[in-house]
């Protein structure tokens, strides 16, 4: 199956094109401020590099985040509307899972970490390999590094663009507990998005093109304040 994968939740427009097991194109364009402006041109470039046109694509994958809220909306809206316009299936995938997939064969559990853009708040999750599949252990984590450190009870490999920075922070939190923390600096890749989407689409599992929404994991600040206010009223 030929699948186009898109992830714009970070600082790049990550675009990948795969045909089954084969990667035909995989690009990450710096797009911290011009993600929307360039996204369709980037997709066009990736398709041309793969020697394909949009009509050749049989399914779409899109990174749902977590990450930059505005950034995710670009990729998710583009993914939804490309799938809608071409009447092809769409699969949304967690960007944390995309990072975990990028780690390849895992010997130890991995913990992808994404900056949540508010102080030292991060989005994270733990994944391990079972029967050749990546499985998430427990819920997504949203909170500070101290809280995340408390969850680490066994050797783990941190993933993400700031993995080394977080390793230092976590090491200073857990001190001399003797738990080995590895780090691999990595960004979500378009072909990883496409591969995870392909795996679902092959099983006939896809998302509803119209209702698919980003994985924000955090409420908007206005909603948080309002809920606090209402709680005080009570």
């Amino acid at each position, binding site marked *: 199956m030929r699948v186009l994968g898109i992830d714009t939740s970070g600082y790049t427009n990550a675009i990948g094109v795969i045909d089954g097991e084969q990667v035909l194109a995989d690009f990450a364009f710096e797009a911290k401020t*011009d993600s*929307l*402006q*360039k*996204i*369709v*041109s980037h*997709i*066009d470039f990736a398709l041309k590099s793969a020697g394909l046109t*949009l009509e050749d694509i049989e399914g779409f994958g899109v990174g749902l985040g977590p990450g930059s*809220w*505005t950034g995710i*909306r*670009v990729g*998710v*809206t*583009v993914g*939804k*509307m*490309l799938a*809608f*316009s*071409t009447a092809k299936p769409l699969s949304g995938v967690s960007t944390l899972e995309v990072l975990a997939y990028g780690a390849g064969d895992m010997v130890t559990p991995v913990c992808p970490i994404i900056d949540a853009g508010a102080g030292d708040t991060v989005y994270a999750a733990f994944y391990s390999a079972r029967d050749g599949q990546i499985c998430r252990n427990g819920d997504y984590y949203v909170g500070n590094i101290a809280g995340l450190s408390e969850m680490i009870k066994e050797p783990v490999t941190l993933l993400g663009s700031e993995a080394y920075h977080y390793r230092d922070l976590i090491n200073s939190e857990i001190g001399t507990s003797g738990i080995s923390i590895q780090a691999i600096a990595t960004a979500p890749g378009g072909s990883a998005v496409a591969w995870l989407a392909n795996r679902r689409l092959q099983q006939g599992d896809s998302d509803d*093109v*119209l*209702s698919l*929404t*980003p994985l*924000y994991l955090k409420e*908007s*600040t*206005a*909603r948080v304040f*309002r809920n606090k206010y209402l709680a005080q009223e009570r």
Partner: protein
Amino acid sequence: MLLLGIETSCDETSAALVADGKVVLSNVIATQLDLLQKYGGVVPEIAARRHTELIGYVIKEALDKAGKTLADVEAVAVTARQGLIGCLLVGVAAAKSISYSLGIPLVGVHHIEGHIFASLLSNPRLHFPHLCLTVSGGHSMLLHVQDCCRYELLGTTLDDAAGEAFDKIAKFLNLGFPGGPVIDKLSTQGNSKAFRFPRPLLRANNLDFSFSGLKTSVINAFKDRLATGEALPQEDIAASFQEAVVDVLVAKTMRAVDGREVSAISVTGGVSANRRLRKVFQESCQKRGLGVFFPELSLCTDNAAMVAAAGYARLSRGEVSDLNLDVIPNSPLELQRGG
């Protein structure tokens, strides 16, 4: 030529199908009224999230209602300028994707230009040149529409938009959101001469507006009465406030007619739905032998049909946006002046 219009610049998610810039086949508008009432106004992040949830449904419904499929669509027009950046972005991302998928032209439109075309769309007898007063919760502008897609900005608000003043006064009086319709309704039962509120900038030698001071004056009058224990007739406050806004809008527009070769006035935007404003404009224009035109009610507030109409005008002039179209939250309309 069949155009798909998309509008997400503020809190309305809208898609429309318009034939040849004239015939509205569908105009689907999903309001965020529930959110507005909950938060007492537009919260950009919450509005952007809602646009992302709704955009696909709204486009599909616009196609279904018009009895068309995407294959029938020949071009996509989208609001790309003037509005909340995170909200504009959702519409533009959708429009680009559709344009690219179908291999059809894309055209980015200025939101205010959309409002100008809302009136043209509703009134085949409205021609160029004319004056356009566009008043809503987000803007208040007086424009000389010299020709198709040629505009001169004559005046604008220095602080609050007219509709914003309605919203804030309604919020202060605990009347809910949005304030326009509720003040319009309440005013019919009130005495518009009960309070003598200021007419800001009425005597100033320009065509600009200011509503912030008027708003403060209304709030102070309310508080004074509250302090002295006098009755607080909400109807009278609403009617007197509305009369002050209407007076200024009409007077300044009439002043703009002087020395310009215009025979018609067009009043657009959400506030143009106000019944008192329509009535006073009709009376004043009749006296001076001017034509006056308003959009039909469904085209007063933000909608995608007006965006499709403006986009068609741009396309007819050979103007097409490329796939690198970006959003600009604050963009002067004059930048768009062609010809």
